[in-house]
């Protein structure tokens, strides 16, 4: 699992780095050309601002999207964003909002990338570009906030469910408890540790032990 995730992240990362290199070089090319006209230190840049906005609008979204992908195994939310779920609106409202936010950010990014140009831009379009650029940051901030909030809430709910279940089990009679592993204290874990539990189960499965099945006791 982890090994496969490492390899997937590496391959996906390299495919993300390629456009990032292209976009970075576009911005640096513009800066290098206009740097010859610069006469004093730490001046504001008006000539490559449009290029910077256009390039960064795509770049940072690639970085953010890759960040979400790299941590997806931990968040365990990859399967919830399927095309079918999105189309049929078969997902909670918060997730629908997340998808809408991502869609809007992608549209703004493509628009900014398309209208980029070197040289000074008119004030009106510069203002619009600045607004769109920071709007992308804001949208992604909302997305991450929502993702973290959902994960925290889910962990909290799982913990509460686990606690309730443990309480119920402790109320069971001795013979029933015996069925769940000869009175050994059962460990309940949160959903974030489910991977580890699965691993343990797999190991048990390999050995052919059937002690988990109460029918064979």
């Amino acid at each position, binding site marked *: *699992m*982890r*090994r496969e995730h*490492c*390899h997937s*992240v*590496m391959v996906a*990362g390299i495919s993300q*780095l*390629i456009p*990032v*290199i*292209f*976009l*970075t070089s576009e911005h*640096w*090319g*513009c*800066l*290098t*050309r*206009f*740097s*010859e006209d610069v*006469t004093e*230190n*730490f*001046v*504001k840049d008006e000539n490559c601002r449009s290029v*910077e906005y256009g*390039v*960064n609008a795509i770049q*940072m979204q690639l*970085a953010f999207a*890759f*960040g979400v992908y*790299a*941590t997806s*195994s931990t968040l365990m939310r990859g399967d919830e964003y399927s*095309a*079918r779920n999105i*189309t*049929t*609106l078969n997902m909670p409202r918060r997730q629908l909002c997340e998808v809408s936010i991502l869609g809007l950010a992608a*549209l703004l990014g*493509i*628009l900014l*990338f*398309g*209208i*980029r140009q*070197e*040289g000074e831009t*008119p004030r009106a379009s510069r203002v619009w570009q600045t607004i769109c650029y920071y709007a992308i940051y804001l949208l992604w901030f909302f997305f*991450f906030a929502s993702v973290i909030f959902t994960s925290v809430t889910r962990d909290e709910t799982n913990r509460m469910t686990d606690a309730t279940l443990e309480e119920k089990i402790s109320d069971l009679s001795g013979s029933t408890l015996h069925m769940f592993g000869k009175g050994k204290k059962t460990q309940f874990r949160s959903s974030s540790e489910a*991977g*580890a539990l*699965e*691993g343990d189960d*797999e190991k048990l499965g390999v050995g052919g032990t059937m002690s988990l099945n109460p029918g064979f006791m």
Partner: protein
Amino acid sequence: MELQETTNTPARPPLRPAVSVKLVPLERCSYLWVFLLQLLIVATAVVAFSYFLGEDEHKLTMVYMTTTLTPFMLLAMGSIVSLCPKDTWVRLSSFILCELIFLCRSFIYFGMKNYPGAIGNLMFFGVYYLIYRAMEKLAACLPAKLNNDNESLNKFNCQTIPLTTTGSLMSMLYCASESFSCLLDEENHNDVENCADKINSNEGMLWFLTLSAFAKLYIIPHLEVQYSVADLLRFDLKNSREAVLVLLTAVVGLYTIFVYASSEKLHENFDHRTNTTTTKVVIMDGNETALRNTITKIVPFMIGLVPLVLNLSKNMIPRFRVMTRTTLRARIAPIYRWILELVALTITSLNVYYVFLVYTSTNIEQEVNKIEKWRILCWATNPLIWVVVTLHFFGTPTAQKRKENVMFFLFSMFFVLQTLGNFFQAKIDTERGETRLNSVFVNGFLALMVIPIYLMVNSSRKMLAKHHIDDIDAHLQRCLSLAISIVPPIIFLFAEPQSCVAYANNYKIEQCALLRESNYVVGGHLSYAFLFYVTFGYKLDSMTKGGLLSLQDMRFHTVCQLICLIISSTTCFIVYGMRNSELYAERVFNDESIGKLDEFLTSSSPFSMVADCWAVTLFTQLLHSRRMETEAKFHRRSVDDQKHSKMIHRFTSWVDQRTKKIIEKFHVNDDEARVATPIRVILFLMSISSGVLSLFVVCFSSQLGIQQIYRISHGMGSLRVFSVVSTFIFLFTHLSDTLVADKVIFLSMVVVFGADSYFEYKRRSAWEANIVFGVLASIAMLGILKLKKTTMKGTI
């Protein structure tokens, strides 16, 4: 005991009830999507009708905006009909609005006294009704076509339609934003007609993207057979109508790319930076504009032909289908061979004409310029001829190769003709004489290099022919897929600088050098990659992703190839990113110095770097293949003394052994969830690069030049993203342990944001915002480090 015996008895599998898939009710979701799509149609209508209300000076802008938005409207309409085959009112209301827009467009053109445009839109008003009826019919009969299989219908409704619409919308938005960018440009604010060609060319691409979406929604699902790459390889299509349709779509696609890439402004203003004057240069005069207009208007006409072909008889030219396809395996269809031969012949004819032109011309400036334009055009076809000749040579690996040899002869003729042309041009073109003489030597060398290249591909072809027919067929299928995916970019790269060169009457051809050379580098990279894959691709099957990342599949030649591939690809992407610059054109126009960067980019150095890398890649692979072949002979013949007779094989064998020993030290065991250390070292350096660089600038700002500080301080934003992506890769490619390096990277990121705030403070900008952003980013980074710890608890 009894219980055990019972368990050992094979159990009878329980009878499962047949699983019935329910049709996903689309009412709830479709209304939302339809609402959004209708919003798009309404937006187009608002822009179109505002023509009648707006001021006179903005009317043309409204016309161009409507032109750009019309394909979006049609895409929305197509998706609506597909989404709501049962909801007549929704479809009809959208349809009526679309028809009104066409009527409005017709009035607009009539008002502008553009009568062909007005008649064309009026005609489309009627044609659109037919298209709408056809769409309705096709959408209604789709369930029957899919045998009322709910699973397939769900897949079409919930995946195919939304993904097609969204994907097309994204690509179209990029095309449209280029048009909007031209309209918003201050230079064109009071002269939007300057963008006419750009808008028309982009419109062509928008129509083509709409056509692709329509094909996915209305043509492909209704085909009698769903084709695979194997069918395409043999061009084994169900009937001659489909064969014509595929060919026509391919031609339309390539033509659209050509027109889209070669769009130009009608005139350009070049600022003189020293005496602050501006020169207005006419790029296209009246005749050229009219010709270009005709070229761009052919695109919608050709696109319109595609649905018309659908109305023709299925077996309209039965002989055509028989002639173009093959039933044999392990070979490409005759139609591809004809196309490849035609392209090679055309390229050779262009070169012959170039030599003829240069041989018969005199030393007049206009003629010299014309010859230079022809030379550039012919030389730019170089990446294409590599692809064409390679694919043709490997097209029939098990058959005789007379035609293939002729094609290789044409390939060598390309360089011979270039040598001759450059030689004659050097005599008459005094200004470019020295450069042309250099080209004579380069082309002569390349003409000689065709011989070893032929020997290499020939030996590889023989080796491929010895493989099983299934392997050959699979390799050819992969080659065809690769060719289909790289030919459009090569055409784009070829066409983009050609318009700049072709219209260079009132400005210098050298102004196009940056774009031309950069595109040539990328085109060359793609064609060499294709050559490598076609020649040796069938030997790369044994390599796996896991094996490469844990260095278990690494040999000496693989290491060389990976290094060369990284250098070559990085060079290409850097060059491609820097290829467009109005400042460069202005400097050349005003005879100012162009700067070191542009000097480097317009020189032959980037291309040499890419070509050398691919030469090493091909050479190492060839040596390895030959050595492996000899070693295989040892095994087959059970030779006791397994020593290579050739010195080069003995040497490479020794190097391979040594490399293997070194690499073994970095092998990753199967119980470790990480990639190999050398790869991670590179990732670590990439991750901390922006931190180190910004720290360096902060510490040594007094010793750095003004230009260096300007570049680094402003470029840190883009470089930071590069480091962030590298950081993510670094963190999540070692899930076995927490490392000190993780914390170093975290510190590096903090340094970057700190330095950025320092730069903003120095520029008297809003540095506080940067601090806030840095703090947020640092918190996010700490969260990610925590997430990594959680991930490490998972199974290996």
